[in-house]
C-alpha cells in the first residue's frame, strides 16, 4: 500500500466533485471538503468515511468571497499541512439573460468563476511549488472553447481560468508539480437539471466523468476532455467559420 492520498476539494458539493471524492474514499484517502452548505458537507464527509476514506473533514466557507491567504493553510491542517491533489470544482452557470440586463448579476458570475477561482489557483500553486509535488485539478468546461450566444459569459470565465491553469502548469513543471484543466461536456447534475433532452447520447453522469478527474491528478496532459470525445467535437466546433457559426442557434 502506498501512503493515503491527501486531497483537498474546493467546492466539494458539486456533483462531479462528490463522484470524484468517492473514488478517493474507496482508495482510503484523507480528504478535506470545502463548501458553503455545512449540513450537506457533514453528510458528504460521513458518506466518504463509510465508503472507506481514512478521514474526511468538512470546512464551511464561501470560497467565492473568502481570501485564500488565511483559509488555505487552515484547510491543509487536517491533511498534516501538505497535499497531493487539490480540486477546484465550484462555479455557477448563472442566468445569462439576467446578466445581460443586470451587470451586478454578470459581476457575480465573473467573481465566482474567474476572479475567486483564479486567486485560489494561485494560492494552491504556491503551496505545490513549495512542496515540489502535487496536482491542482481545475474543472473547466467545453463552453470555454468557443463563445456562443447561449452561454458566453460562463464560457469566458472558464476560458480565462483555462489559460491561467495552462500557465500554472508551465510554471510548476520545473519543480515536478502539476496543474490540469479538465473540461467536461454535458453532465447530468443539479446545475443542468433545467436543460431539456438531458438523456441524449452526448450527456454523461458525474460517475462517468469522475474517473477522468481522478486520473488527471496522477498524470497525463494539461488539458483533458471528459468524456474524451469532446476533444474532436470541440476542435470541429472551433473550426467552423464565423459566417456559418453565426447562422446556428447553439
Amino acid at each position, binding site marked *: 500500500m502506498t501512503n493515503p492520498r491527501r486531497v483537498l476539494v474546493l467546492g466539494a458539493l458539486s456533483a462531479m466533485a462528490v463522484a470524484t471524492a468517492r473514488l478517493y474514499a*474507496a482508495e482510503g484517502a484523507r480528504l478535506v471538503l470545502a463548501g458553503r452548505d455545512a*449540513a*450537506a458537507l457533514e*453528510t*458528504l464527509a*460521513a*458518506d466518504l468515511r*463509510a*465508503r*472507506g476514506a481514512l478521514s474526511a473533514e468538512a470546512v464551511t466557507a464561501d470560497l467565492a468571497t473568502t481570501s485564500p491567504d488565511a483559509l488555505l493553510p487552515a484547510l491543509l491542517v487536517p491533511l498534516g499541512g501538505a497535499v497531493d491533489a487539490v480540486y477546484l470544482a465550484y462555479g455557477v452557470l448563472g442566468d445569462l439573460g439576467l446578466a445581460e440586463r443586470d451587470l451586478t448579476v454578470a459581476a457575480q458570475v465573473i467573481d465566482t468563476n474567474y476572479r475567486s477561482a483564479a486567486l485560489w489557483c494561485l494560492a494552491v500553486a504556491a503551496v505545490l511549488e513549495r512542496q515540489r509535488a502535487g496536482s491542482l485539478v481545475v474543472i473547466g468546461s467545453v463552453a470555454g472553447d468557443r463563445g456562443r450566444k447561449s452561454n458566453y459569459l460562463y464560457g469566458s470565465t472558464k476560458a480565462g481560468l483555462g489559460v491561467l491553469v495552462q500557465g500554472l502548469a508551465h510554471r510548476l513543471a520545473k519543480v515536478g508539480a502539476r496543474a490540469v484543466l479538465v473540461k467536461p461536456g454535458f453532465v447530468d447534475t*443539479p446545475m443542468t*437539471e*433545467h436543460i431539456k433532452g438531458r*438523456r441524449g447520447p452526448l450527456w454523461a453522469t458525474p460517475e*462517468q466523468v469522475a474517473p477522468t478527474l481522478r486520473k488527471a491528478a496522477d498524470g497525463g496532459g494539461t488539458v483533458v476532455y471528459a468524456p474524451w470525445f469532446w476533444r474532436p467535437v470541440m476542435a470541429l466546433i472551433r473550426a467552423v467559420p464565423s459566417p456559418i457559426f453565426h447562422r446556428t442557434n447553439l
Partner: protein
Amino acid sequence: MTLEFRERRDYLSWGRVERRPQRVARPASRRDLAPLASGGWPRLAVGLLRSYGDSCLATGASLLDLTRLDHLLAFDDETGLLTAEAGVSLGELMRIFVPRGWFPPVTPGTRFVTLGGAVANDVHGKNHEAAGTFGRHVAALTLLRSDVGEVTCSPAENAELFAATIGGLGLTGVITTVTLRMRRIASAYIDAEKLAYGSLDAFFELNAESEARFEHLVAWFDCTAGAANLGRGIFSRGNWSPFGDLEPHRDAGLLQLPVELPSFTINPLSLRLINAVYRANETRALGAHRLHYGPFFHPLDSVRGWSRIYGRAGMYQYQCVLPVPTAAAATHALLAQIAKSGEGSFLAVLKAFGALPSPGLLSFPMPGITLAVDFADHGRKTLALFERLDQVVSEAGGRLYPAKDGRISREMFAEGYPALARFARSVDPACTSDFWERVRP
C-alpha cells in the same frame, strides 16, 4: 434548493406498457424534501424504476426521483450494520463493500434497485429459503410522512408502520433512510452448479434435495415445452465460495439496448428459437463452476435496457406464488396454460420460497413456489391468458407480485393479501401510485 417539478416522458416502468407523462422532481438532498412534511399534495417516491407495471408511476400526482439521495450515513465494520439514504443502489453498495468483504443480505435479479425500492417491494433473491426477504435484514428506516413529518420505524419502534412499510410499495410515506444488516463474504464468487432436468416433478425433487446444501437456488424453464417436457429446464444452485478475490462487478462497458426493437421481435417462432438456443447454450455449461456474483445473480444486468427488446408495445411479467399444499398441481396447470398459449418468453423462472416469514403486511413471498414469466404485450390475447392464469392462482390460494403487476383486479389483490385493510390504515394520505389507485380497497 426546493423541489422543482417537470413533465417527463422518459419516466417509464420497466415493462414500458404505460406511457403517460409523469411530473417529476429530482431532489439533490434530504433537506429538499422538507416541503413533503407540509401539504397533502399527492406524491410517490421512486428509484431506478425496475418495477414492471404501474407501482412506480403516479400519473397526475408527483414523482420524487430519489436517486440523488445516495449517501451512506454510517457503516460499522465489525457488525456490517449500514445506514444509508434510500436512493443508493444495491449495485453501488456491492461496488463499495465487496472489496471489504460485505454483501447485501438479499439481492433480487437486478442490482439496479435502490435501497428504498428493495424495502418498498420487500424483494427476495435466490437465497429465500436461507435468508427470507430483504425486509428481514432491515433494522430500521426513516419515513417522511405528510401528516406527522419524520418517523423512525423498526421492529421495536412504530412496529405497525414498519410492518406496513416493508413491502408497502412506497405508500406509507417517503422512505428516506434505511439501516441494513449486510452479510460477510469471503470472496466475490459463487461455487455454482447447473443441472438439466426434464420435468416439473424432477424440479421439485432437485429442489428438495438441494435445499439443505445450497444457499442459492433457482431454475430457468422452457415455457414453450409442452406435454411430457412440461417444466423442463436448467436448475442452478450455489454457495458463496471461500476462494477467490473480492473484486466487485463493473457496470462500465455494459451492452446497451439503446432503442426499442420492432414489436414483432418476440413472436412464437422466435421464442421457440431463443429458448432452444438458450437451453443448448446452458446445457453446454452444465456442471460445477466458480462464477462471479455478477453473472450468477444479475445475468440480465449485462444488457442495459433489455426490456426494449419487446418494442413499443412493451412487456408484462406474470409472477405469482403458490402455497405449499397446492404448489405442485397449480404450477403444472399454469405451465400447461402458458405452453398452450404459445406466449411466454425467454425469461421463465421457477423458485421455491422457504418458511421464513416475511415481515411486511404486503410482502409477496410465502412458503411455496414462485413462478415468473415474461410476456410481450399482445393486447387482449395476453390479458385473456393472464385471466386464465389468475383463475388457477386464485383457486390455489396464491397471489401476484405487485412489483411485476400492471393489470391485477381489485378483487384478486384483496383476496391474495389478507392484511390489506390493516395496511391501508398506515398509508400516508398523500402517497399514491397508479397501482394503488387501481387496487385500493
